[in-house]
């Protein structure tokens, strides 16, 4: 490379006029002024606030219109009632943040509880061994989903629709379509019902299951927001190709998400034994849809990459609050279903509106 004379650098003539133009190319423009604009920007930056606000408002309204609603006991009861769906929603959130969907969460959960029960109650395996085995099973189910999605390149919806049926058939196979009774669990493997225990605080009954649900959310929140793995999960859901180019091993991240989701389902399976009191192959058939409902109401975008996992917790609580509130207000069951439907639509509409902020 010789030091030859460099040709003079000339700007294009037509660009000279740029000197007079606005130089603030890289400045954040705060030209939005109206209340709606500001609200939109605020919610864009704080997506969890939508469900929090909805939760607060619904608590207030039901507190006024429904008898016995606003008692410590009833609030702790709502926590209990949503705890299992809440845990499934936590697992579901992970998957949905990656722009996927997991229709098999509830099936994995029930399968794990059935297998744990089969081992511990019927075959006499100590709970301390049976439970970890069920966790491994849950993780393996998740791994199967992840494997099919990342290696065989099947869409998550189709994959988990398929595995949902597969796991469901296994549930029938292992359970013989028969519940394991609470009394038999108490007699042979009481530890399976550990999460049914509760701590009385004032008038409230906080079950271990409720605490576990909150704990799962807090741990996942930390993982998603405070670790590199979590940032990668969001990046994969946001734009998989971009993440790949930015050097993320996207398939590895996706696989880890499905495995973790499966593991959480297995833990939820254990907790469900405490909640339901028996091991029932027929319970939670709609758990997958209910978990998706909680996630959506929680403001987590089905398009991936957006929303805080805490939103799913609030989403699950909102559904619980509505069901309890409407129930106590003496509203017929079908209107509870009706209300949940509108909540979903409203949540998605708000999500779409918030997303437009970037456009």
């Amino acid at each position, binding site marked *: *490379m*010789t030091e*030859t*004379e*460099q*040709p003079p*650098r*000339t*700007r*294009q003539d*037509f*660009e000279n006029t*740029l000197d007079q*133009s*606005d130089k*603030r*190319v*890289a*400045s*954040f423009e705060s030209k939005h002024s109206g209340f709606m604009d500001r609200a939109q920007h605020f919610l*864009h*930056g704080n997506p969890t606030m939508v469900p929090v606000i909805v939760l607060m408002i619904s608590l207030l309204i039901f507190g006024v219109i429904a008898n016995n609603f606003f008692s410590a006991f009833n609030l702790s009861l709502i926590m209990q009632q949503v705890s299992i769906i809440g845990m499934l929603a936590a697992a579901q959130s992970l998957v949905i943040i990656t722009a996927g969907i997991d229709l098999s969460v509830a099936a994995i959960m029930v399968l794990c509880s059935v297998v744990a029960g089969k081992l511990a109650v019927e075959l006499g395996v100590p709970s301390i061994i049976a439970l970890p085995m069920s966790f491994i099973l849950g993780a393996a189910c998740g791994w199967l989903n992840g494997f099919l999605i990342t290696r065989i390149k099947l869409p998550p919806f189709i994959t988990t629709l398929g595995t949902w049926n597969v796991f469901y058939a296994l549930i029938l196979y292992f359970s013989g379509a028969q519940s394991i009774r609470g009394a038999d669990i108490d007699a042979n493997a009481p530890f399976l019902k550990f999460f049914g225990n509760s701590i009385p605080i004032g008038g409230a009954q906080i079950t271990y299951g409720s605490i576990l649900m909150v704990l799962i959310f807090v741990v996942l929140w*930390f993982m998603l927001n*405070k*670790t*590199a*793995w979590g*940032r*990668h999960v*969001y*990046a994969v859901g*946001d*734009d998989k*190709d*971009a*993440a*790949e*180019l*930015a*050097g*993320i*091993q996207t398939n590895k991240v996706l696989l880890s998400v499905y495995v973790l989701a499966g593991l959480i389902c297995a833990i939820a399976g254990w907790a469900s034994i405490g909640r339901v009191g028996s091991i029932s192959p027929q319970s939670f058939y709609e758990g997958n849809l209910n978990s998706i409902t909680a996630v959506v109401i929680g403001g987590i975008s089905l398009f991936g*990459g*957006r929303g805080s996992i805490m939103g799913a917790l609030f989403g699950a609580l909102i559904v619980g609050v509505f069901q309890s509130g409407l129930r106590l207000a003496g509203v017929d069951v079908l209107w509870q279903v009706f209300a949940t439907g509108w909540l979903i639509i409203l949540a998605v509409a708000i999500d779409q509106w918030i997303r437009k*902020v*970037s456009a």
Partner: protein
Amino acid sequence: MSTPVLKARGLVKRYGRVTALDHADFDLYPGEILAVIGDNGAGKSSLIKAISGAVQPDEGVIELDGKPVQFGSPMEGRQAGIETVYQNLALSPALSIADNMFMGREIRKEGFAGKWLKQLDQAQMRKIAREKLSELGLMTIQNIDQPVETLSGGQRQGVAVARAAAFGSKVVILDEPTAALGVKESRKVLELILDVKSRGLPIVLISHNMPHVFEVADRIHVHRLGRRHAVIRPGDYTMSDAVAFMTGAKDPPPDNEAA
């Protein structure tokens, strides 16, 4: 002539019956801006992907600082010091500027929190991101936690270039950095490119925009039919000449470096 930072000889890449690279050569010297131009389908992207590690050539050798290298993935290329700013920027729109700058090479906290909880040192990452953006005169971006999707096209390009410049120790490759931008923002990005160059990093600039190429490039690599067709200096030829070489309307000069 000094040793090229990055040198490739006889690169071949076939996709089925299509030959994207047909014994292509490539040289990038220290401290220069090398523009790569070529018609659509001439194999520019394949060339860039081959030297950045995104694809593995079927034949040929690549040398970085005189040592032969083989990249199995873009990550390996990156670890060797070659940073690429792709046309789609490889940014995650919903994530913050800081998150994006450190995507894939996050910094963990010291001690227990970092080692066992794998907690990130977000304060540190924000600080560095802010510094890097300031160095390139981009610190009019006020909020480092702002999601990238709220930035303008030029600002996003700025973040992507800043990321490349911050981590690219040997080479920065820019793929069509001005293609999607308006006049004003293109100008800003060109200045950014010269800024990066002034800090001693050699740059490979792939562009269709002849005025931009002639303005900033020290040398121009003309790619045609899967191979290096000519290398010219902007001072020696006009834009029309460059286009003529590119399209095959004119033969390259006999004394050109590509021969």
